[in-house]
């Protein structure tokens, strides 16, 4: 099979994925499966959060516990934009189209501000060693929350309500695809290799000429941007942006997804985020034991399989896929397997 031109190949996941998710969304709507749809939206958001955190915690081996703070920055930015503009038809477009455009802009703006916050937090903190970074990032998350609670324009403790419900399965699907693509491409790129080197042995990497602080900050910024995306998505399905959604318990939940799945494994993060979100929903029936069950699960899993579900391996590292890749490489002339 001839390989498609690079430009098309880059877009392929979106061109294939989005229509599928859109179809799924329409089916759910027709059947009235709102609960499943909402659950999938939550899973999608958690996957975005987990994979984006994996870039920092997994690829780079740094210890960030402030993910919810970046989520909040992205969420509130997006919320402010949609609150101001979503009901105004822009550029003479019909309202539905205009809303989507505003939403897209809001999400991207959220990502940019979250990235900025990531830069501000990362620059000073990434000079610090492991565990200290954890507490510092947690602290930053709390500081961001304190600021929100004290700012009238952000609704203070009550938050911003009445947000339009713009997040749909399609949007979440697009977000998930974007995040997965980002992570995957980062992992196989030169920059990714630098991050892995930093994870394995920072001093050796520095000795090899890798600008460790620079790369760490970059990873932090990217991770924060996608956390902002998740934040923007979740508040537009909740139709409410409140500081209570972004406590450090939330950050810890995301860290759990990443560690459970396996630090450095994108597949792992996807699987564990999905499984845990579903599990928590299942455990709802056992009500008050829910959180206790979650905690026990954590401890037992860490004791039984500390490297997480996937370790650092990915789905395509499985022998089945490796054989197919090998065969494809053999078939293509001029490429050594």
């Amino acid at each position: 099979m001839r390989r498609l031109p690079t430009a098309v190949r880059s877009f392929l996941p979106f061109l294939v994925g989005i229509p599928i998710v859109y179809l799924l969304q329409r089916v759910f709507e027709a059947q009235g499966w709102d609960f499943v749809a909402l659950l999938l939206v939550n899973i999608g958001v958690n996957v975005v959060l987990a994979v984006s955190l994996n870039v920092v915690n997994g690829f780079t081996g740094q210890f960030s516990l402030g993910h919810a703070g970046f989520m909040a920055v992205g969420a509130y930015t997006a919320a402010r934009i949609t609150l101001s503009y979503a009901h105004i038809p822009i550029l003479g477009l019909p309202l539905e189209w205009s809303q989507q455009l505003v939403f897209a802009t809001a999400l991207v703006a959220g990502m940019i501000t979250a990235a900025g916050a990531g830069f501000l937090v990362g620059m000073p903190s990434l000079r610090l060693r492991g565990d200290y970074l954890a507490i510092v990032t947690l602290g930053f998350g709390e500081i961001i929350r304190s600021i929100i609670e004290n700012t009238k324009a952000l609704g203070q403790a009550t938050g911003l309500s009445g947000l339009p419900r713009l997040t749909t399965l399609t949007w979440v699907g697009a977000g998930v695809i974007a995040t997965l693509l980002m992570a995957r491409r980062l992992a196989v790129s030169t920059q990714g290799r630098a991050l892995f080197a930093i994870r394995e042995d920072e001093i050796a990497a520095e000795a090899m000429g890798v600008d460790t602080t620079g790369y760490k900050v970059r990873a932090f910024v990217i991770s924060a941007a996608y956390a902002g995306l998740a934040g923007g998505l979740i508040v537009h399905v909740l139709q409410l942006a409140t500081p209570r959604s972004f406590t450090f318990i939330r950050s810890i939940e995301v860290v759990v997804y990443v560690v459970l799945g396996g630090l450095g494994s994108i597949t792992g993060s996807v699987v564990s985020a999905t499984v845990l979100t579903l599990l928590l929903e299942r455990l709802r029936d056992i009500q008050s034991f829910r959180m206790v069950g979650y905690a026990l699960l954590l401890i037992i899993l860490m004791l039984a399989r500390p490297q997480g579900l996937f370790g650092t391996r990915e789905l395509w590292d499985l022998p089945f896929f490796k054989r197919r890749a090998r065969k494809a490489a053999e078939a293509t002339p001029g490429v050594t397997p």
Partner: protein
Amino acid sequence: MTEFLQHLINGLSVGTIYALVALGYTMVYGVLKLINFAHGDVYMVGAFAGYYLAGTVTSEQATLGRASLITLASMLICGAVGYVIERFAYRPLRHRARLTALITAIGVSFLLEYGFQLDAIIKKPIEFPPGPSPRFFPVLLDLGDPFTFLDVTVPKFDVLAIAVAAALMVGLQLIVYRTRFGTAMRAVSFDSNVAGLMGIPVNRIISGTFVLGSMLAAAAGVINAGARHKIDPLFGLIPGLKAFVAAVLGGIGSVPGAMVGGLVLGLAEEFVVGYTASSYRDAIAFTILILVLLLKPQGILGRVTVEKV
């Protein structure tokens, strides 16, 4: 002037609690390089242990003797809790990545917090778990009206608390620097592998450290509950984090450092909240942490350690 002095007293009172909890934190971190997230919850368990013990002992006569007994008993209980946690949750992960141990610590923390929030399973002689509702911690020691001078009130209990904290700190210093156990602890904190080769029973030392740290946390819990009288399963979370900040501020791994760090943090919080923005209380602790780590990472009393390759 009165206000300033009152703030000073308040700050020292708050700082004492942070200092006590920080002592445990700093010891455990010094030996294991682990941020024991569950430490704040052991503090909470200590307070509840004191609550249950005080309940069954029926507090007609609130005497010093009885109060000390309750404190000691709850320290022992928490020592046991600390031992169990270390033995079953942390020891198996000692050779694994730091992040894994931290996750387990978070798991233990959640377990304690949410476990205590369950509805009572055992009803007699005590209601356990206590459930989410806050409880009133009985007055274990009625020392009478506070000292007042210049319209500044100094609760007598706070004076006692500082005295006890100081005594514990001195005791801990003695243990660390004057006993064999302490020397072994310091050896393990330098390099646990080599310490093991030197014949030190590393596992036992680490367990001992945990037990000691948990006992201190329990003492802090009982003292705090004795002053503030309100306990609930979630009240150890934030103090735990702030105690870690205090430990870092004072110099992680240093016992007097934890004391100093705790008091400084308490005072800082008090003055900033009292004179300026009271809505940013928790943010203050973290801001201090960030500043310390950026400007003087070894803390006030810590030593600069060079990381060798």
